[in-house]
């Protein structure tokens, strides 16, 4: 393999790689603003200027191809002074409003100013002033003064989102970013520009001024918006989710995620209409009850129906583990055959980039975990018909708002004699229920989802429920939560009395006389890996942060 020398270190590279790419592959970060591994090279920020032996001028590491035997220095006097100079130039007209800037703490300009500038400015002239608070579109706000004109956002729109929505206007130090006349930054991925903006020029209207970056904890988890399962960081402060940002996974979502997933998936977790504690219907309205009371009621009610009169609906929003335990419970404890789950397909709503038609994150996993009708059992459509015909009198439903799928289901579901629902939020389906178990959301539990590619990915809890032990459940902590105790801010904030499905089913099975011993989601997964062929040899460790693709050839047989 050919190699070159970078600051005395031998770096191997593949023909065609640039210096910065080859260095990045081995974990060496040559300072850069405009370069982004997924975008074309623009070479305009000049902060990656390096000295290459036998070259008369400094060269930019982002566009210079590595060649065998090349000797590159990033810290020679010449390279260092060029980097210092570029930093000085970038800062002379920058407003330096870090104290009120959302980017502070994750700002490349801030970090590089700390690492690569001399800490002294010789600039005493008036700064150039530009437009601040320009709304570029529904979700993105632009501050022209903070912008360092790296063109990443323009290239993102052109090359990734596939729409020419942003451009530079004006010249020289008056250069700024704008949309074309009468047009907006409105592509479904528009907020990605705020991720790749190296400074605080492009900010999310949704997140602006909500929190200092360092006051939040970030948890590596998965977006629930569709069957893509974009890898995300979930940012939480005081037990409240404040934003999602995409997490790099080349196999799934690269560096990107859609605005819909970023903005509209987590808000139900923070919402005021959360189901907080178990509820029972009394005199037509749902009222709070104790866990034991509800378990006792559910047990006696379920016992009073014939097996053929009961149906269980799993969920494409619940984890594999939860669906697995539910399916097991339905088959071996209730002894029923009518098991299925509802699909959430929105035909033609997907695209060729990330967004999928299937608006649920785990339809693959639900089916694989055993949520499908047994021989002679009814599927979802037939279950609904049987309810309508009053052949099925009791329905056990987890994490699915069926009425949101079809208004007509309201009439059908009200014919039920017993309707037990697990739900995180009150909705038009829970209104019809006799018993509502409070469900922990995807942000409050461990578990796995399988995306449309057949990739199994892990959820991690980022928000705490009443029963959750943060240290045992491996939750990240923010600066405000140094000790993870009742006395820190997180401990004092709003926590839901909610449980994951598997935990509730475990209690219910025990109440019905079958011993379930599950203590953690991981134990269920280990059982699945022993009983489900596709999961053979897998455990949480192996699924890891980036997931594992299941054997595709076997998958083809499983219909999605």
């Amino acid at each position, binding site marked *: 393999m050919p190699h070159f020398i970078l600051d005395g270190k031998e770096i191997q590279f593949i023909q065609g790689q640039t210096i910065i790419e080859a260095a990045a592959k081995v974990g060496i970060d040559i300072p850069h603003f405009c370069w982004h591994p997924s975008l074309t090279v623009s070479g305009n920020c000049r902060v990656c200027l390096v000295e290459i032996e036998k070259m008369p001028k400094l060269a930019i590491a982002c566009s210079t191809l590595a060649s065998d035997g090349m000797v590159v220095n990033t810290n020679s006097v010449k390279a260092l002074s060029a980097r210092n100079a570029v930093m000085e130039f970038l800062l002379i007209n920058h407003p330096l409003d870090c104290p009120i800037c959302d980017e502070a703490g994750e700002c490349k300009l801030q970090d590089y100013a700390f690492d690569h500038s001399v800490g002294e400015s010789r600039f*005493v002239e008036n700064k150039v002033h530009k437009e601040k608070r320009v709304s570029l579109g529904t979700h993105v706000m632009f501050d022209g003064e903070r912008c360092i*004109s790296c063109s990443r956002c323009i290239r993102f729109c052109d090359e990734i989102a596939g729409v020419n929505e942003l451009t530079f206007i004006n010249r020289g130090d008056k250069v700024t970013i704008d949309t074309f006349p009468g047009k907006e930054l409105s592509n479904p991925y528009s907020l990605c520009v705020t991720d790749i903006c190296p400074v605080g020029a492009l900010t999310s209207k949704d997140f602006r001024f909500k929190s200092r970056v360092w006051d939040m904890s970030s948890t590596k988890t998965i977006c629930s918006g569709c069957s893509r399962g974009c890898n995300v960081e979930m940012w939480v402060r005081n037990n409240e989710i404040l934003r999602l940002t995409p997490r790099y996974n080349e196999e799934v979502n690269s560096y990107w995620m859609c605005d819909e997933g970023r903005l509209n998936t987590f808000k139900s977790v923070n919402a005021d209409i959360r189901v907080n504690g178990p509820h029972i219907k009394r005199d037509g309205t749902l009222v709070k009850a104790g866990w034991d009371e509800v378990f006792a009621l559910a047990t006696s009610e379920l016992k009073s129906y014939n097996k053929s009169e009961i149906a269980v609906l799993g969920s494409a929003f619940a984890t594999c583990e939860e669906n697995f335990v539910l399916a097991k419970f339905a088959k071996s404890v209730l002894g029923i055959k009518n098991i299925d789950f509802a699909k959430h397909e929105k035909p033609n709503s997907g695209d060729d980039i990330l967004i999928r038609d299937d608006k649920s994150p785990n339809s693959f996993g639900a089916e694989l975990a055993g949520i499908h009708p047994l021989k002679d059992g009814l599927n979802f459509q037939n279950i609904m018909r049987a309810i309508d015909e009053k052949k099925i009198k009791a329905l056990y439903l987890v994490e699915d708002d069926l009425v949101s799928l079809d208004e007509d289901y309201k009439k059908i579901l009200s014919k039920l004699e017993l309707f037990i629902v697990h739900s995180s939020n009150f909705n038009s389906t829970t209104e019809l229920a006799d018993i509502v178990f409070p469900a922990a959301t995807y942000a409050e539990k461990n578990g796995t989802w399988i995306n449309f590619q057949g990739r199994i990915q892990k959820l991690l809890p980022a928000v705490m429920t009443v029963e959750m032990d943060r240290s045992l459940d491996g939750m990240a902590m923010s600066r405000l939560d140094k000790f993870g105790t009742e006395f820190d801010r997180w401990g004092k904030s709003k926590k839901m009395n909610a449980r994951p499905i598997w935990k509730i089913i475990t209690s219910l099975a025990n109440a019905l006389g079958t011993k379930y011993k599950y203590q953690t989601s991981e134990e269920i997964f280990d059982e699945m890996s022993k009983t489900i062929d596709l999961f053979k040899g897998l455990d949480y460790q192996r699924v890891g942060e980036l997931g594992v693709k299941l054997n595709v050839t076997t998958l083809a047989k499983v219909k999605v």
Partner: protein
Amino acid sequence: MTMEKIVLPDIENLHQLDVYLKNGGYSAAQKAFSLTSDEIIDQVKKSGLRGRGGAAFSAGIKWSFMPKSNDKPKYLCINGDESEPGSFKDRQVFEFNPHQLIEGTIISCFAIGAKVSYVYIRGEYHKWIKLFQKALDDAYANNFVGEGMKQKFGTDFSCDIYIHKGAGAYICGEETSLMNSIEGKRGYPRIKPPFPAQSGLWGNPTTINNVETITNIPPIINKGWEWFASIGEPKHPGTILFGISGHVNKPGVYELPSGTLLTELIFNYAGGVPGNKKVKCVIPGGSSMPPLRGDQIEGIKMDAESLKIAGSAIGTGGVIVMDEDTDLVKVLARIAKFYYHESCGQCTPCREGTGWMLKLLNRIVRGEGSKKDVDLLISVANNIDGNTVCALGEAAAWPVKFMIQRFRDEFDARVKDEIMIPVLNKVHSMRKTANPLSPVQN
């Protein structure tokens, strides 16, 4: 010394096709079609013709960079964006000898295998665009260009020439910006490599030559490379169009053999300085080239090599003469304003640095500068020089660096030892670390 004029011969109405034809017009093209493209490139190489657009690079060698394979279309761009202050020679070609440019374009296209050529003309040159369009229309009408040239010249080669009007940006004279501009994109220079010969217009092999360079081609083909190589300085042969302006009695464009003495140009051809004043400063090649001290111009020859030795460059041959009463601080501020205004804003050092230099110079002009500011100017110029995407960085930095270096006394006389200015950006500008890195010598 031969006084032959190659680019702008003294023939009345030469811009008219019939007059051009009477004087041997388009015979070089006819001759060229009997040669192979390699033979033409070889002749141009041997003639020693160097680019007249500023860099003075060998035209023949540039052509030889074009790939021989024909798997992609190839293009020729003729750069007539002439926007450098002090440069006004290409417009003379459009006005007085357009057909020789057209003929040169045809021969060049044939030599490099281009079927299409774009003549990029500065947007402000309305008049000259019209004049050149007229000549081009005549050439098309008489089958010297386009499909008809096959029959006219009895060859299977044909090419088309299009005029592309610039939109008022100096940066579009930079060859890769020029290509972006033709493509309809923002006039931002491209990073090199790839060079235009590898990936130019729409990613295809492209050569960019200056108007004057191409106009030299027909006589070279007609009279042979030996003839051309014998004119002027051997290392930079031929004639050069010198556009002289400023404090001279007869400003204008003079076609003279390379190596003509600068003093000869000023005092003989341009009629000397009004009022017989002393020359204080001369910029020999357009405003971006290092200025020379008036008391040191004796014996300097006007060609690329000689000017290099003298500490400047031939540039576009636009000579700006300034007499002893000129305020050089103001001159430099005006030059800096030009490069500030024309900086495209793509890369950091030029975008930020040109504005900074202008602000410093304006302050010094106002009498609010200190000695430290003069040093700072040089430092800022050094920080731009060599660190930018394109040569506009140098174009902005050189005048500042060299004007101050060569006329330091003028600047020192305009500044105070120390000056208190209200600091508007206090937080940043007054911040000091305990141990700042020692300034690096450039």
